[in-house]
């Protein structure tokens, strides 16, 4: 289709539309409701919690400052937990050994075979 043909069709369509008349009346507040629909379509929908998390996951975690802080916190937390666990276990072992020392020396506490 070339430009002349297209222009001819436009003219014909324009003429037809100018001749077209309708008796039907618009519903009340037609324009208002059209604008409201346009506004609703333009307002972005609020994101779901999952989307927020996914966005955070994809954008915040890879930030160097966050990644380094996260690893330092886990490093310190893991170390502190390991230290605390070892401290408790060592205390328990020492208590056992001290009791054992007394049992070995005291004939009234020595376990019989």
């Amino acid at each position: 289709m070339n430009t002349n043909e297209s222009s001819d069709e436009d003219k014909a369509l324009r003429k037809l539309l100018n001749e077209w008349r309708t008796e039907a009346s618009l519903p009340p507040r037609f324009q208002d409701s059209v604008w409201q629909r346009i506004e609703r379509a333009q307002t972005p929908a609020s994101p779901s919690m999952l989307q927020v998390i996914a966005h955070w996951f994809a954008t915040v975690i890879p930030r160097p400052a966050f990644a380094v802080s996260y690893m330092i916190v886990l490093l310190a937390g893991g170390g502190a937990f390991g230290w605390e666990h070892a401290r408790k276990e060592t205390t328990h072992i020492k208590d056992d050994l001290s009791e054992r020392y007394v049992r070995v020396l005291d004939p009234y506490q020595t376990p019989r075979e």
Partner: protein
Amino acid sequence: MKRSLFILVLGLFIGAAAYGCIYSVCMSPARAMERSQRPELAWLKEEFHLSDAEFKRVSELHAAYLPHCREMCRKIDEQNAQLQKLLAGATNTTPEIDAALVEIAQLRSGCQRMMLRHFFEVSQTMPPEQGSRYLAWVKGKVFAADYGMNGQK
């Protein structure tokens, strides 16, 4: 997304590795004590900060004491068995039961004397401050007010 996941997993791995390293390093002295030939003596050495020479002397005293302790154990078991035999079916005290009870009491005081002598010897092997601490601790353990009331303390 993949990068985020990698960072999360790496962080968890670092946390677990830190836990494992610190735990095993802090536990190694206690584990070494448990693995030693005489764990209770290894504990004594560590608890009362004994030098190698002091520890050697304490170990010698300990080794010399044990045969006496075993002999006492044997006598206690013998006397307990004897008393049980006398008590079986008894409805009243008899001169034999009285005598067995006296012997048991004498045996107990003999045991306590023997232990106390050993504790004093051990404490004198230690530096004075540690020796006092050792005596206070062991007296509390062996000569506490409820001694023998619950079988074990």
